[in-house]
């Protein structure tokens, strides 16, 4: 199925959660949006901002982060195409964290009022949006466990497993190869480790023949092995809903 409309990937992802009528599908396609492009590490949303729009990724990666008063950074999630990076701002109004582009990134910016109107008029779409935010929460819970109670090897392996599954789900798997633009520093900030520790851990996962990671391309050589090291069980991604 080829996409004729830039929002079709979103329609397809949401319609996995709930069966949509033609009217539902069209209502999503008719969402008014502005296309914005961001270079590497640009701010899409800043903490404390009154959010006027919600950003859907059309191309590229983005991440959510919070800065501590001493300047340390914790990355709290990564986002890939077909995902909204800040759907919650449609309801909460004030952004409680920052969102940055990870690489060259293309966003469909939808006004908050258009999101609310779509949710009001289309119960099935509202439910799909809702499921999206509930799955986000489940991922955050797993991240608390990951940085809280796993050792460094497991943390990195777990994060890689999660991203592989999510990338596969949007069809970004190129015969076992994945575009993987995350830097070691970003991996470190997502796992609560230092960059040096992250580097050492990646090297050991490589040496054990679990994966290859170079020039922004990830290849998983031993999925079962990586899963085991990562203590990874994909239940929390709720793909069965």
């Amino acid at each position: 199925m080829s996409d004729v409309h830039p929002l079709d990937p979103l329609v397809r992802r949401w319609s996995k959660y709930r069966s949509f009528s033609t009217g539902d599908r069209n209502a999503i396609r008719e969402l008014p949006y502005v296309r914005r492009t961001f270079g590497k590490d640009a701010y899409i949303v800043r903490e404390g901002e009154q959010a006027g729009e919600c950003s859907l990724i059309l191309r590229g990666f983005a991440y959510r982060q919070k800065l501590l008063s001493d300047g340390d950074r914790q990355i709290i999630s990564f986002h890939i195409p077909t995902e909204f990076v800040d759907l919650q701002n449609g309801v909460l109004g004030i952004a409680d964290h920052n969102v940055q582009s990870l690489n060259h990134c293309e966003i469909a910016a939808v006004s908050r009022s258009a999101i609310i109107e779509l949710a009001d008029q289309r119960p099935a779409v509202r439910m799909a949006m809702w499921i999206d935010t509930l799955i986000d929460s489940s991922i955050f819970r797993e991240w608390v466990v990951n940085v809280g109670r796993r050792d460094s090897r497991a943390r990195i392996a777990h994060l890689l497993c999660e991203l592989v599954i999510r990338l596969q789900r949007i069809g970004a798997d190129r015969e076992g190869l994945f575009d993987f633009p995350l830097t070691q520093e970003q991996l470190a900030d997502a796992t609560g480790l230092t960059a040096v520790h992250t580097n050492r851990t990646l090297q050991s996962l490589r040496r054990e023949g679990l994966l290859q990671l170079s020039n922004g391309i990830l290849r998983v050589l031993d999925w079962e092995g990586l899963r085991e090291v990562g203590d990874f069980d994909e239940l929390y991604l709720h793909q069965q809903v």
Partner: protein
Amino acid sequence: MQIFLQELEALAPLSVDDRLAILQLPMRLRRLDAGAYIVREGDVPKHCVILIDGFAIRQKLTGQGARQILALCIPGDAIDFQNMFLDISDHAVQMLTRSIVAEVPREAFQEIVMTRPAIGAAVIHSTLIESSILREWVVNVGRRNARARIAHILCEFAVRLEARGLASGEGFELPMTQEQLADATSLTPIHVNRVLKTLQAEGLISRQRRRIEFDDWRALQEVADFNRRYLHVTSEDEVVAAAL
């Protein structure tokens, strides 16, 4: 159910009919002992559960058996709104104290949030705040030192309990043991004990059994790197501004 209703009304204006619809939800009250599980990871829940009285924790175990506590549930919280639409529970919820919960059949709950927009809005709002708190917990265990982690969790509990009228600004009864605090902050119980003593020695808090008093609330927030924005509750300043 009154406490749950109040919590929803704080998030979205409800009509008389909305209120009635909540009070008339089919439900069963259950008393649970401390330590009892209301839902386990992997369960297919049939109910949405609201905590009426008492405290509970969300938790997950790693493959090695280490426990991570993910949230403290306080009276008025829905324990598992996510089970409205997600079929399998991805974590366990365990009672910290003797508690009373209201169990509402999943379908009845789904129906009320889908057919009554104001209730739906309040419930969405509540799940999004829960999500925001989880993000802050990632930061807490990921990038703060032990002292800041403990101070942060104390500040968070204090603000949440106060917002629901369950504590005064001076202090509160901590419903957790030091071991549970350790599992919520990814520290060891010994480390938690040491940090609590330090905070006390520095004149930030005082403790009597489970009671925590804030002797220097401002300084504690500073140690914690605490900014209540992520709780999305109305701040004292806003309350004052609204009153003027």
